[in-house]
């Protein structure tokens, strides 16, 4: 039997953490792109687009991420198009992230005071001019702290991809545990790795929130 030193464990976790970071980035960039499209669909005056987006958001917010992952991974296979754990995790996390970001961003747009619309309107601005110069810049500023805050949820969400066999931090931890039988050491280290990824983001979100507060926008 191979002996694992602490450094061996840390090194392996570090290597696996790369995939946690990569998967998080894919989920976030993909989720933000789809989420942005959804946000504008939600703002559209077409009723069916509004209905579609709220159904979409409710669906992905109202079911566990794990089920979404299973449905995509096993569903694709059941339909005769098996996909890799990479693809399944990327797609599921993108959809999940987009639903939450759409909802966060819609809230930010609605949080801009109604009086801003009125003021812009009596100054002669049309819908697009008001959006572009008055509402979006303020909503963007409001959206940064909750968006950064949600990215922490995305990072932790990637842990679920381990269940369909995607080797990231959690999966690597499980595999190392199977070889070393030192669950306490290993999962403490895994938790510390997640914390090291998430904590700076949480701090950054708090910092941004304070900055916003100081700017008098809240």
């Amino acid at each position, binding site marked *: 039997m191979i002996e694992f030193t602490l450094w061996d464990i840390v090194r392996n976790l570090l290597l696996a953490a790369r995939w946690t970071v990569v998967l998080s980035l894919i989920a976030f960039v993909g989720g933000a792109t789809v989420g942005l499209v959804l946000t504008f669909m939600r703002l559209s005056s077409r009723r069916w687009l509004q209905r579609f987006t709220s159904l979409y958001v409710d669906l992905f917010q109202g079911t566990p991420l794990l089920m979404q992952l299973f449905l995509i991974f096993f569903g694709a296979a059941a339909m005769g198009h098996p996909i890799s754990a990479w693809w399944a995790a990327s797609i599921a996390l993108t959809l999940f992230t987009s639903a939450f970001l759409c909802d966060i961003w819609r809230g930010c747009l609605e949080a801009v*005071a109604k*009086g*801003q619309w*009125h*003021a*812009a*309107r*009596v*100054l*002669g*601005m*049309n819908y697009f*001019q008001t959006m572009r*110069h*008055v509402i979006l*810049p*303020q909503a963007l*500023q409001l959206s940064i702290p909750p968006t950064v805050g949600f990215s922490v949820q995305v990072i932790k969400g990637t842990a679920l991809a381990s269940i369909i066999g995607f080797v990231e931090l959690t999966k690597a931890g499980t595999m190392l545990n199977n070889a070393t039988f030192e669950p306490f050491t290993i999962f403490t280290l895994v938790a510390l790795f997640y914390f090291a990824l998430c904590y700076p983001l949480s701090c950054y979100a708090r910092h941004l929130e304070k900055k916003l507060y100081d*700017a*008098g*926008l809240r």
Partner: protein
Amino acid sequence: MTLVCVNNVHKAFGDLQVLKGIDLNVAQGEVVAIIGRSGSGKSTLLRCLNQLEQHDSGEITIAEQQLDAGSMSPKELSENVGMVFQSFNLFPHKTVGDNVCLAPVVVRGEARADVEKVAREVLDKVGLADKYDAYPAQLSGGQQQRVAIARALAMRPKVLLCDEVTSALDPELVGEVLRVLEALAAEGMTLILVTHEMGFARDVADRVVFMHQGRIHEEGEPAELFSNPKTPELKQFISAVL
């Protein structure tokens, strides 16, 4: 010349009749103060004048152009009517100068340099030339409201609507805003103000309109109206607020 002509205007919110047939003519250069209890329809009338609310029936004409749903774009409307709100509604993410410059540049497509010159003029007029680069959050309520007035003036409207512009201010800040309005009135600006400042209505307005339950209940010259109210409702209102 009659600038604003309101003819038998009705407006309801659901079952609630807020305006029950308003007739009001405002001549160019005239200063009209609208007074009355809350819920009497004053603000709704004002908001109908720039289509923040659409009246149900009757006619509103501004500078000889009829105001119906969609008859004037926001841009065309802004050439005629400016408005200042109770809650200022400055754009918090823009400096004072940018607040004033935004609409002329974006809506009218005027050259930035020209607009900046106008902005400095109107800010000077409201006594805030030195705040050009400040953000709204750095200003007092009175200063913010004066910026809002300057912002409206930069669009050179024919008539300026003021919706309880001093109601959100601390008492010691009311004066500075009223002085700006007084100066505008003296320059010949047409003003329609909904106000709770009876002293101001008496001293500055050419005409005071008392609204009661969705109708114009009594109107006339301020001195006459305040010292010699004809209806018991106005009498009661005056004794309640003075």
